[in-house]
């Protein structure tokens, strides 16, 4: 056969490798994304594994005598410019007005904020992807599902969010405890109210993908719809989904803090970054560190997640990867 000699020694092919390795390779080349990923990983590890090393209970209030002594300790670095400051090595970031260790509270708060972010994002993605794929792929569902999406877009979200918190908080708190209840509530509310953009993007992509030749090819060989969606459509809408995902985390963290401010979030004694920030605002001039740390934590998380999103978008885009 004439084509037997097709193998050309001049074309050096790379050894077979996993698709995700390529993504990772490309991702690594995006400096911002890499730094973002490292920072985010650092924050996540710090927040979830940190408590293993820094074994302080975020809710722990020391007995009376100690409490008076220990409350409102400043972070140790304060001595740099204020030699008489009340600092203690036992509390590197200082303590709050009940002598609770601030570092421990930051870590506990981070756990909640990041978990809320991740969980809400996951939920919104699942919903958005499901609806987007169904609407895009099945023509009959397109109309109704897009009307539904429009409907959700037309609902004024913040008011309804607040009302829904009022509505379900106690119910869920009864079932899952106050923190658990609010957690489920915030996660599901943020999730339920933020899937529409994802759905629209996914639908658009699916509509385009559906006409792409490889999908028609799959149909022409008799692959049933279910498998076409799973095998051909879903993996290819991954990149817009990933990008919405990173934005979703940020939005969820911020929404949680706004709800805390309006008094609809987690219970007051339960640390989250938004809540810590909010509680510290009153004493901003006295103890600036108490606003700076949670504020910084939120900003840096959002920033790093955003850079990860940028990098992922580049890495998942085969056009860019090809270059």
């Amino acid at each position, binding site marked *: 056969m*004439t*084509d037997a000699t097709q193998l050309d020694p001049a074309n050096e092919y790379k050894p077979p490798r996993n698709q995700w390795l390529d993504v990772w390779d490309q991702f690594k080349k995006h400096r911002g994304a890499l730094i973002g990923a490292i920072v985010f990983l650092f924050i996540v590890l710090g927040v979830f594994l940190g408590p293993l090393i820094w074994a302080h209970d975020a809710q722990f209030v020391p007995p009376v005598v100690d409490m008076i002594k220990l409350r409102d300790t400043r972070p140790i670095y304060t001595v740099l410019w204020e030699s008489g400051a009340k600092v203690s090595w036992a509390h590197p970031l200082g303590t709050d007005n009940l002598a609770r260790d601030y570092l421990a509270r930051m870590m506990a708060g981070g756990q909640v904020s990041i978990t809320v972010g991740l969980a809400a994002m996951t939920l919104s993605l699942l919903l958005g992807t499901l609806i987007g794929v169904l609407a895009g792929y099945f023509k009959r569902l397109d109309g109704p599902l897009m009307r539904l999406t429009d409907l959700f877009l037309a609902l004024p979200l913040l008011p309804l969010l607040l009302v829904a918190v009022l509505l379900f908080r106690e119910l869920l708190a009864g079932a899952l405890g106050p923190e658990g209840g609010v957690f489920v509530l915030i996660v599901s509310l943020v999730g339920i109210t933020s899937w529409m953009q994802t759905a629209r993007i996914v639908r658009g992509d699916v509509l385009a993908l559906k006409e792409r030749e490889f999908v028609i090819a*799959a149909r022409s060989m008799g692959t049933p719809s279910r498998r076409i969606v799973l095998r051909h459509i879903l993996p290819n809408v991954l990149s817009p989904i990933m990008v919405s995902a990173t934005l979703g985390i940020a939005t969820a963290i911020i929404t949680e803090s706004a709800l805390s401010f309006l008094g609809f979030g987690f219970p007051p004694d339960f640390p989250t970054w938004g809540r810590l920030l909010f509680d510290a605002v009153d004493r901003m001039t006295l103890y600036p560190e108490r606003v700076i740390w949670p504020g910084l934590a939120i900003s840096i998380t959002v920033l790093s997640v955003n850079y990860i999103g940028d990098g992922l978008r580049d890495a998942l885009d085969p056009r860019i990867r090809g270059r």
Partner: protein
Amino acid sequence: MFDAPADRKTLVEVRDLKMHFPIYAGLLRRHVGDVKAVDGVSFDIFDGETLGLVGESGCGKSTCGRAVLRLYDITAGTIRIEGEDISTMGQETLRKKRPTMQMVFQDPQASLNPRMTLAGIIGEPLDEHTGLKGSARRDRIYELMDAVGLNRDFANRYPHEFSGGQRQRIGIARALALHPKFIVCDEPIAALDVSIQAQVVNLLEDLQDKFGLTYLFISHDLSMVRHIADRVAVMYLGKVVEVAAREGLYADPKHPYTQALLSAVPEPDPVLHDTAERVILTGDVPSPSNPPQGCNFCTRCPQVFDICRLKDPQSREIEPGRHVACHLHNEPQAAGETAA
């Protein structure tokens, strides 16, 4: 000169195939018209031959090819494959029938899922229609890769790691996986470089010889069609204007559109180029949603006359195996007068 079709078995028989895409408009999204992408097309494809389908962009070639494979729910007409009418078949029965008819696509990049390995792509039809598992499946995949000239080492690579020609081979291997009888090749070489086109065309020819395949070869490259096809159908705006055996068509095109089309192909020879007389069409192809009255070609036809603007010409077999839809050839004597 003309292949007498009588002795050959008809594998695919398309009669009056119509594929209209509805247009909805107005306040109530009423159905106001159709994109008549394919508007009454009839042809036969004989067992083991290659029918070339040529025409300008947007004239409905791809739609026709896909409709023949029932990738669309067709508007009207019948399609018989091996004598079996598939035009109204349910999706599940159709699925069973799929192995006999396959498709190769225009864009080798777009027709392969960028996130599947070569083995996965070629293996997909096997998973759908055969019970092959494990090493049997792998062997079949290797066999197919050998058949299209792909190195077995490539099995775990992804499409973007291949060149255009190689990708098209993957597409062909996938189409071959289920031992089809009939393959629709939708512009399989259009996206390839000249130097690569020839490789793919040769491969298709080899495979046809080896497996006794029947092709519907869609292309707008008339020179390639001339090379590969046994018979050629020329489409214009959703209709087949001329069907003829290759030699006859290229030597003596009957329909004015075919003539224009052939003369528009640039001749890769400066000497011939300067001597050839050419028919340059004016204007553009009208929109298929709003075709002109009468003959579809009447807006651009250099030999247009009154009746063309009134009546749509019927396809007639003017010579054995040669169908033309043109008023010039309706009544031979009238045509003769006009042409003279």
